[in-house]
């Protein structure tokens, strides 16, 4: 009997359940998709070293999943609470008919289980199909072979999803039973809310608060973009964040009053159709939902900036990676080891062995050969030396700009000597790397730098003073700005400065600081390259590495393959976690917004009945409702988008990888599509639900 009642109830209130059901299904599907990553086909096809990265990613996603389960848990309890509240009267009637609390709890229990099971099945079904699409994305990111497509179902992920959601449903049941046991019959029967007293804000105060809030936001925007160089401590970071939060709350607190006031001044717009009603509705509603609107706005802001910036980091990283890894391997070691020196980290005095000192006087190819390395593995070998002149420090380069620079970047080590390379040496490297080569006359020098902030700093300095006097010689900067270029490969632009000097500029042997070698692997296929790669990175059965280790010779290096894998792995982990969190935040905020709106609709049912009675037709009423819900959904999104424009700029400049607008475009489009679909679904479900609610007879 109770079972029948439950089923009938669900059928009857299907439209009420729509939001709840949508949230559950999306939650289950997303949860399954991200937890089934490890068993997806693409993961089976990738290389050994990539798989380690994936393992790391899976374990991180596992931890994130716990957090997400908590968020979803709260969301589900909240959504369920809405449903129970809407049915207070129904439960009241059951109680007057003599049904006990326990039986009512049972009805809800059966409903929860039914909805839970159905949503689990539907959600996993969608998740299984969604994960096939995700597989394609994974394959693209990890460059796995996906020529043979097989359909994958992950039992582990399925079981994990079921367990997590079972726990959440259990929480819902306990919550429901508690709620029901607190109900009093009289409150249940008179639960339909009456038109209530409306709190009206003073319009003047609204306008003042609005202007102050906009000012706060504007200033916060300025701090994180224009004034970003001032942001050098964590405490200073808190200021724009707090200003942003206060500003957002302030805007929502005052916005409706402000708009109302503005539109009221134009009687033509205000006294047209249902405009007056819609505006008053919004004004009244936003007054009661300031905090939730602000939270939703900030959540959307996080979603948008996290999604679009993580996706664009990937794009930027990819294109930079191509440019920054022109050869297969770089090797470098310290030249001219002294008898003793102080370790810059530990402060201990270190006495190198005679063997180490001897080796440091020779080139890298000498070290390789003497330690049993087969030089046939390498081709296109270019070797150069990097010098430092004690008196030519960064501070000296900056010259009169030093004081200003120090004020901006107090952390830089200004007394560090600059790296100096002969221009012909650099041209050898540049030729190998396929980069611009330079020529210098006898009294000229060039600064190479591609690290954004450092470039700006050096450019300023070069504009102020471009002449240096070193060892009695005078050199002028050939260009009054930095040129791009680098010798060491890395995953992004990190060259903070190299100075090119003419070949006839006398560089003493004792100034030699570092030996450098760049080369390609003598191999045609990827497999052969992987084999040679092992001669540098794999410790087992490796003559070179064990010999070097024995003698204590430190030979450092960087290979193209390891750089690409590390960078890809990192960016992929960032992307997956960002998408996971972003989508869940999005679902959470849309669901809360939708439920708020539905609650409002059922509370305001009477107002629509009045509209109908004074002669509004259904079309007009639906239009008023649509506008109201549309504005209600759009306001937090619009402010979040404005926040995000500055947020993304800030993130990108923090990462010193300023992507051009064209890099950003695809990820912004992708973000827009994701948000459009999820937010749109909730918007539609809310509109349908509200339409249904205001049609009901009392």
């Amino acid at each position, binding site marked *: 009997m109770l079972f029948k009642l439950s089923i009938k109830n669900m059928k009857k209130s299907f439209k009420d359940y729509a939001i709840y059901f949508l949230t559950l299904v999306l939650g289950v599907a997303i949860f399954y998709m991200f937890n089934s990553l490890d068993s997806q086909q693409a993961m089976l096809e990738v290389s050994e070293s990539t798989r380690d990265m994936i393992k790391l990613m899976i374990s991180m996603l596992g931890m994130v999943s716990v957090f997400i389960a908590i968020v979803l848990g709260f969301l589900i309890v909240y959504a369920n609470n809405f449903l129970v509240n809407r049915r207070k009267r129904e439960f009241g009637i059951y109680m007057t008919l003599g049904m006990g609390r326990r039986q009512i709890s049972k009805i809800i229990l059966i409903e929860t289980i039914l909805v839970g099971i159905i949503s689990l099945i539907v959600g996993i079904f969608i998740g299984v199909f969604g994960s096939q699409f995700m597989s394609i994305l994974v394959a693209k990111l990890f460059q796995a072979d996906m020529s043979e497509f097989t359909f994958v179902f992950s039992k582990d992920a399925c079981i994990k999803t079921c367990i997590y959601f079972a726990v959440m449903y259990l929480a819902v049941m306990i919550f429901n039973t508690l709620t029901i046991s607190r109900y009093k019959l009289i409150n249940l029967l008179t639960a339909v809310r009456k038109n209530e007293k*409306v709190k009206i804000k003073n319009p003047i105060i609204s306008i003042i608060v609005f202007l102050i809030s906009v000012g706060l936001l504007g200033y916060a925007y300025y701090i994180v973009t224009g004034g970003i160089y001032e942001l050098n401590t964590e405490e200073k970071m808190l200021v724009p964040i707090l200003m942003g939060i206060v500003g957002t709350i302030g805007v929502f607190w005052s916005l409706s009053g402000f708009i109302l006031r503005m539109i009221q001044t134009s009687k033509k717009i205000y*006294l*047209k159709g*249902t405009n007056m009603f819609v505006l008053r509705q919004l004004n009244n509603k936003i007054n009661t939902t300031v905090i939730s609107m602000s939270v939703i706005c900030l959540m959307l802001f996080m979603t948008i900036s996290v999604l679009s910036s993580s996706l664009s980091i990937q794009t930027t990283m990819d294109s930079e990676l191509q440019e920054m890894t022109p050869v297969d391997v770089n090797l470098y070691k310290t030249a001219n080891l002294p008898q003793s020196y102080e370790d810059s980290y530990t402060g201990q005095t270190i006495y190198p062995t005679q063997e180490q000192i001897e080796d440091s006087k020779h080139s890298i190819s000498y070290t390789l050969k003497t330690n049993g390395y087969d030089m046939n593995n390498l081709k296109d070998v270019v070797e150069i030396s990097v010098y430092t002149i004690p008196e030519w420090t960064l501070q000296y380069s900056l010259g009169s700009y030093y004081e200003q620079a120090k004020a901006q970047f107090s952390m830089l080590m200004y007394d560090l000597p600059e790296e100096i390379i002969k221009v012909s040496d650099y041209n050898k490297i540049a030729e190998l790397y396929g980069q611009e080569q330079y020529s210098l006359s006898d009294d000229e020098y060039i600064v190479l730098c591609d690290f954004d902030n450092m470039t700006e700093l050096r450019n300023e300095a070069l504009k102020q003073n471009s002449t240096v006097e070193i060892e009695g010689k005078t050199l002028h900067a050939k260009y009054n700005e930095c040129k791009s270029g680098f010798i060491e490969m890395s995953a992004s632009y990190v060259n903070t400065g190299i100075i090119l000097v003419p070949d006839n500029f006398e560089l003493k042997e004792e100034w030699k600081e570092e030996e450098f070698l760049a080369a390609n692997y003598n191999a045609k296929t990827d497999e052969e390259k992987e084999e040679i790669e092992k001669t540098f990175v794999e410790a087992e059965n490796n003559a070179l590495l064990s010999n070097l280790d024995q003698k204590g010779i430190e030979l450092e290096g960087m290979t193209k393959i390891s750089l690409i894998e590390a960078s890809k792995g990192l960016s992929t982990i960032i992307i997956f976690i960002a998408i996971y969190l972003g989508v869940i935040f999005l679902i959470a905020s849309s669901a809360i917004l939708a439920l708020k709106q539905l609650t409002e609709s059922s509370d305001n049912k009477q107002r629509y009945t009045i509209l109908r009675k004074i002669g*509004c037709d259904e079309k007009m009423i639906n239009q008023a409702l649509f506008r109201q819900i549309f504005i209600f959904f759009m306001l937090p999104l619009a402010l979040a988008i404005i926040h995000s424009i500055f947020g993304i700029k800030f993130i990108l400049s923090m990462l010193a990888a300023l992507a051009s607008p064209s890099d950003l475009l695809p990820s912004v489009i992708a973000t827009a599509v994701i948000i459009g679909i999820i937010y749109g679904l909730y918007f539609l479900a809310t509109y349908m639900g509200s339409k249904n609610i205001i049609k009901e007879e009392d």
Partner: protein
Amino acid sequence: MSHVLEVKNIEKYYGNKSNLTKAIAGISFNVEEGEFVGIMGASGSGKTTLLNCISTIDRVTAGNIIINHQDITKLKGNKLNKFRREELGFIFQDFNLLDTLTAYENIALALTIQKVNAHEIDKKVKEVAEKLEISNILNKYPYQISGGQKQRVASARAIITNPKMVLADEPTGALDSKSARQLLETFEHLNQNLGATILMVTHDAFTASYADRIIFIKDGKIFNELVKGEDTRKQFFEKIIEVQTLLGGDLNDVI
């Protein structure tokens, strides 16, 4: 004088073939322009159904209702809504004012949904407020004003569109006697000085005594009709009470 309202032998049935309820079983009457007509009857007599049919909220099963030469039983959908918006004004027992809007806006809303231009709306609202002596409360919200004032605001909303007929459903039902009297005097003023045609449903004899003519309904049929004529209101009131006693039931009904 022309008929504003002609009700021609209307019937209204509820239910299906096996279980038929006749809410209205053949009622005909006319309302002239500028008349103030009351409809009285016990609960369940069909007076609210009658009002719903006239106000186009409900449809008749048979018969015709002609308002201002237009047969509203033939109208459908949007035309019906348009008709309701433009030709009729409503006053309800529980005021039905929007609590989020000021008195001014509540009155103006009736015009804005007819797409009247803004300048004219402003002028009309002020005019009608003047006539109903509510100018001083125009900027107040419903919760800030008394029941009597609320009903006067509702009346202003009902007549501002210049309807052919104002339909009032138990307008004094939620008012204390003093406010009720004031409101009825307002109705009288509307009727006599502004020429509004009013059709009022009530079960209260005192309220009904303000009308020119009263139609009594019982079991879905017209039971009696009283015309005030040259009577004073007191005399008319006594007559109403007499009919009501009759209406209350025959001796045969008492077991």
